[in-house]
């Protein structure tokens, strides 16, 4: 009985907070837009039979035919991939440095990584606007130092979006990699050197493969939320930045076309299921390897 309760709690959670809302969204995506409250038909008011009869895949067909959506999905994928890669490039050395730091320093370093979470995410993104804008801190600094004479245009470009995503999701990359590196037995590197590797070779042949699971976990933890990211592209990105999160927002709130917006969300979820399943498999494999 107790075991049943233990299993039932997470399943009930998933059912109420994920599956039911998803079904509602899915149902809306099969409906038609209408000038009404709520802004779509059919409703439960029309009776269950009529409701089921009027559902169709029109919105999905529309999304498939309009290349704005395809471009938005592809652009989101590209931005998410590039920023995940950049986060990895920035995060790995930090995690490596933390794992190699003296033991008494590690808790402090760990806290510094988590510290930004103490401030609201929105405020931190706004702060980046202040740093990156034409009259912002970065340009003032660079001009003051004489590195550049004309201010750089970073804000409202894709570069600003990459910076924002790398900054925001960095802890999600660092923590799993750090966890993998910290467990790494130093004598493995010594053994590699003893057998004829240079330090660099030992790093590529031993350290990287053995932190692979941490790298994969970190990349998924960044890639999955970055793909549907809305706040960062809308605040830091320009009109040229096309991301599916932004399209979703516009469909819902500017066009008030809930059915199309829901269809966009359903497709986004289907796209995300692939990396999520891969991520789960990676975690499971890691758990098995540790036994």
């Amino acid at each position, binding site marked *: 009985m107790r075991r049943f309760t233990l299993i039932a709690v997470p399943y009930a959670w998933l059912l109420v907070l994920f599956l039911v809302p998803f079904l509602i969204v899915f149902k809306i995506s099969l409906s038609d837009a209408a000038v009404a409250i709520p802004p779509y038909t059919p409703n439960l008011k029309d009776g269950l039979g009529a409701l089921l009869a009027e559902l169709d895949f029109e919105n999905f067909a529309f999304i498939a035919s309009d290349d704005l959506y395809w471009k938005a999905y592809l652009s989101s994928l590209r931005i998410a991939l590039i920023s995940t890669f950049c986060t990895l490039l920035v995060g790995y050395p930090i995690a490596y440095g933390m794992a190699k730091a003296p033991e008494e320093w590690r808790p402090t370093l760990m806290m510094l990584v988590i510290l930004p979470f103490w401030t609201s995410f929105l405020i931190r993104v706004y702060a980046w606007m202040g740093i990156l804008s034409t009259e912002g801190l970065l340009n003032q600094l660079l001009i003051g130092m004489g590195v550049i004479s004309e201010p750089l245009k970073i804000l409202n470009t894709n570069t600003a979006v990459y910076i924002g995503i790398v900054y925001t999701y960095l802890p999600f990359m660092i923590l799993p990699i750090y966890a993998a590196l910290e467990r790494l037995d130093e004598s493995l590197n*010594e*053994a*590699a050197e*003893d057998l004829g*590797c240079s330090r660099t070779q030992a790093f590529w042949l031993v350290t990287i493969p053995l932190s692979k699971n941490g790298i994969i976990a970190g990349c998924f933890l960044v890639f999955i939320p970055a793909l549907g990211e809305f706040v960062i592209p809308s605040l830091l990105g320009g009109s040229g930045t096309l991301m599916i999160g932004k399209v979703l927002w516009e469909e819902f709130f500017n066009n008030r076309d809930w059915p199309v917006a829901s269809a966009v969300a359903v497709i986004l979820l289907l796209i995300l299921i692939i990396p999520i399943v891969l991520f789960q498999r990676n975690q499971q494999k890691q758990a098995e390897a540790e036994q």
Partner: protein
Amino acid sequence: MHNVSQTVFAPWDDPDKEPLIQFQNVTKKFGEFVAIDDLTLDIYAQEFFALLGPSGCGKTTMMRMLAGFENPTSGTMKLAGQDIADVPPNKRAVNMMFQSYALFPHLSIWENIAFGLKRDKQSKDQIAARVDEMLKLTRLEKFAQRKPHQISGGQRQRVALARSLAKAPKLLLLDEPLGALDKKLRQDTQFELMDIQETTGTTFVIVTHDQEEAMTVASRVAVMDEGRIIQVSTPAAIYEYPNSVYVADFIGEVNIIDATAKPAGKDEYHLDWAAGEAPILAASERPFSEGQKAHLAIRPEKITITTDKPKDASNAMQGKVLDIAYLGNLSTYHVQLPGGQIIKAQTANTRRIARRDITWEDPVWISWSATAGVLLDQ
């Protein structure tokens, strides 16, 4: 050292023989801590050399200096006549078997053994041939495709050995190689190690804190304490002729009797060891002056225990059995003398235990000859 004939492997007695490894006044400090203190030592090719000592005595530091993971603070270290202080670990003809084995968990047994060979840019066929040879030597053929976590501790130990031998190093370092194995497996593996050492002709330097292991496998043993070598000798010489109370006490069981020496004829001394007791007669090549402090180290198995007073024994004392440690093949009797001192005497249990004629609280005689013990000045 004693009565070594020409056929016995003893390059250390041959002054013309060039040592493979030479430590010359090597000192290693970690900050203020002196790990190795002005150490000079020669190790010869094809030796099975054991560094023995309690933890923190500097034996692991010595091994790590040989492997290249630590550099001496001062002094020179030579391998085959070449100063190796500035040679990085990956450029030394030295391989190490790590205490934790340090097998690469993401590689199969085959790939683990091939790891060092691949770094040498050998051809694929050469690598495959050498790996197969190593697998055969360590009887691991069946496990070639497994990962390290899929085999037993004893097998892992053999993989580590095969991997470190694969590059045919001039010198193989073994850091507590059998520490993780249970006793029975450890004993079997000790003989396996000796066989492999003989087959390959590689020079082995083993670090251990287990004196029995050092005695079993090594051609010579260096007993270390606090960064210094106290004695270097063959296992038999270390056991029979320790040069200090520390070595005598570290290797096996021993009775130490503190006394004052009084010369009594050529190479013989009377030892006053307790007020009112007859002096002990002991032979010693090491000279002692009248009234000098001396320590008689005598192994329990060199002491005879009897119920009647022995005839013609140089030294005999009466005591009472306080304790008996029954070890199966042997029994150690703790005999208390009238003055309170406890002397351990050991006998082989050649008779069944039911027929043992000495038991607790029995009055007994213990006796030994003048040459049974070693007289030490420190």
